């Protein structure tokens, strides 16, 4: 993703009550061409670990976690373990 976006940080302005899934969909839309070029599909991404302010998003409300002003979303490679099918990141969840 970093190579596709050619940057390591992106700021987004989202409507109030937006959730993590909304933020990722907005990123996907904003960088559609780059994502296609680098074959990045956010729909099912077991290889990515997502933190919201340092907290694993699955320990919060997953993709439905409501974001607040100033929140930081961090995408990291999934180093170890991996999740069961029911706990993988999925924008449709």
């Amino acid at each position: 993703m970093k190579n596709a976006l050619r940057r390591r940080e992106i700021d987004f302005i989202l409507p109030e009550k937006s959730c993590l899934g909304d933020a990722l969909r907005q990123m996907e839309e904003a960088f559609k061409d780059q994502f296609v070029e680098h074959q990045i599909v956010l729909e099912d991404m077991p290889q990515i670990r997502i933190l919201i302010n340092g907290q694993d998003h699955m320990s919060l409300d997953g993709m439905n976690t409501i974001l607040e002003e100033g929140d930081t979303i961090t995408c990291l490679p999934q180093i170890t373990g991996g999740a069961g099918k029911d706990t993988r990141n999925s924008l449709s969840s």
Partner: protein
Amino acid sequence: MITGGYVGKIAWVDLTNKDIRIESTDSELARMFMGGAGFGIKLVYDLVKPDTDPLGPDNVLVFAPGPITGTSAPCSSRITLSARSPLTGAFGMSTSGGTFPAQLKKSGFDALVISGQSVEPVYLVIRNGKVRIRSAKKIWGMNTFDCQEFLKGDLGNHNDVIACIGQAGEQKSLIASVINERRAMGRKGLGAVMGAKKLKAITVAGNTKIGISDQKRFSKACSELLHRFKAHPSLYKEFGKHGSAMTVDTTIEMGISPANNYSSAGLFEYVESIGYEPQANEILRRNPCKNCPVACSQVRIAKDGDFKGTLTEGPEFETSWSFGVNTGVTDRSAIYLADRLCDDYGMDTISVGSSISFAMELFENDIISIHETDGLDLRFGNHTAMIEVVHKIAKREGIGAILADGVVRASEQIGRGSDYFAMHVKGLELPGYDVRAAKAQGLNYATAFPGADHNRGYSNQDIFGDPVPIRVDRFSSEKSPEVTMWNQVMDAALCDCPTFCVFIMSEGLLRDAEEGLAQNLTEARVGTVSEIVSAATGIEFAPKDLLTLGERVNTLARCFNIREGFSRKDDYLPERLAVEPIPQGPSKGAVTTKEEQDKLLDKYYELYGYDKRGVPTQNRLRLLGLDDVGQDLSQLGLDSE
């Protein structure tokens, strides 16, 4: 009956009398303790009597691979080294990979037990079932790299694989390690035990056949494990490419990378300077352990910085932290050099880095002055001073002489309230996770038998968000006792006894796992290892037997410690972590109070079948087949309440 896995012999070497005995591997020992950590703790418990001087002739060193080591099972070239630790006084065990573990098995032995103390320096030559003791006069004083190169040439066999100590072990530094190739049996000062025995090196070679009892079943189980590896989304693609350096970024982004001797938290600047991406640009090649398809170990060269051109195998995550975030150093080349020097001198990178960060904080707080640091400006971030101190520790010079035996002894010498800044559990310096915001990892630091050892019950749940056996909120300790015990039992049973790599097992076994602490699900996690070990050895290690084995090993190690005077008071985190919240970053405000720790210990002891003092009950010891240990504790007046 043993029909495979083991090669059937254990070598007993008495260095005082230069006596060598070769005995058959006891099948009951194999059935009850399997190998690796199990052999180590059982033999050390039986052979090392209470109050034995760790640096005296009566301490023993047990080099023990496991029944899987040296077979074609992936990621199985691992070895445990056990003794009474001179650093902590507790049972000390370190593990290593590379080629040495597999070669020790192929040299003809399931374990090597070394006792006594030589007057003159010696080394051991082990080939195809024979052990010889030779003079080490020529190599005494050499660093580990030169020692290995010299011995290969001297023995005329460049296929010999060698484990040895450097100058630090010879000087009996209590943070000295044993180095094999460029790997380390790093922690707990076991290099000093070798040095005290005047044992410089052990060379192994051979082509002993390691039989497999049921080849078809064994191959099927190994294939299953490899299939899991392959299916993992990032094991080969990412972890194999970057190794443990990836954890630098993870811990910093989570706000759990302790900075400046735990007085702060490492922030984003460290990702840019020492994270896995800048390190990736400096990888020359991979250097896999024997039979490892992942190959996470990397050889790197510093392309810039004050020590540009430094070549090292590593640094692993813990080293990047201990010589980076924890000392405030951002010059990557200095971290590479510190890593290289520790390998050369034979020292534990975690304990050396932590001892230096301890001295830096004392310096910053005017507890020690520049007159006590040999004129070094020992402020956080001074990478050239850090390198100077690494040399001094290895040579026991000046400030290095104070730090060469770890932070506890250094604080005892310095006094002036410095013990508050000594970050350790049971005398073992803390690794690189701020456990105030990784609660199960914290309970493991507090309770693991060797002291603050991250690898004897690593909390993948806290650090990597693994949902197995349950998903945890890393800021909450509600489930920590259950999760910590699960991790400790699994690490012992699945990794340290068979032996398998702890990195890889978490990857391979947790993939696609279902959640839950239920016994059947837990047993499902150990199924693959059960199949591999049973098929190899012909001894049926059912999943429930493996769970009992893990508990047995951890409990016996605890009993060794109890016999040496350890008790509940030694199962707490350093005071600082109980009274100072993390000051900044994503985990700001997290703390683990004494009261919280008390509750966690009560529950943890209950789960393990220990009383409130942390002493195993006689009933639990019987259930684990440790009746004789119960009698030992009774004779010492240490019956459970």
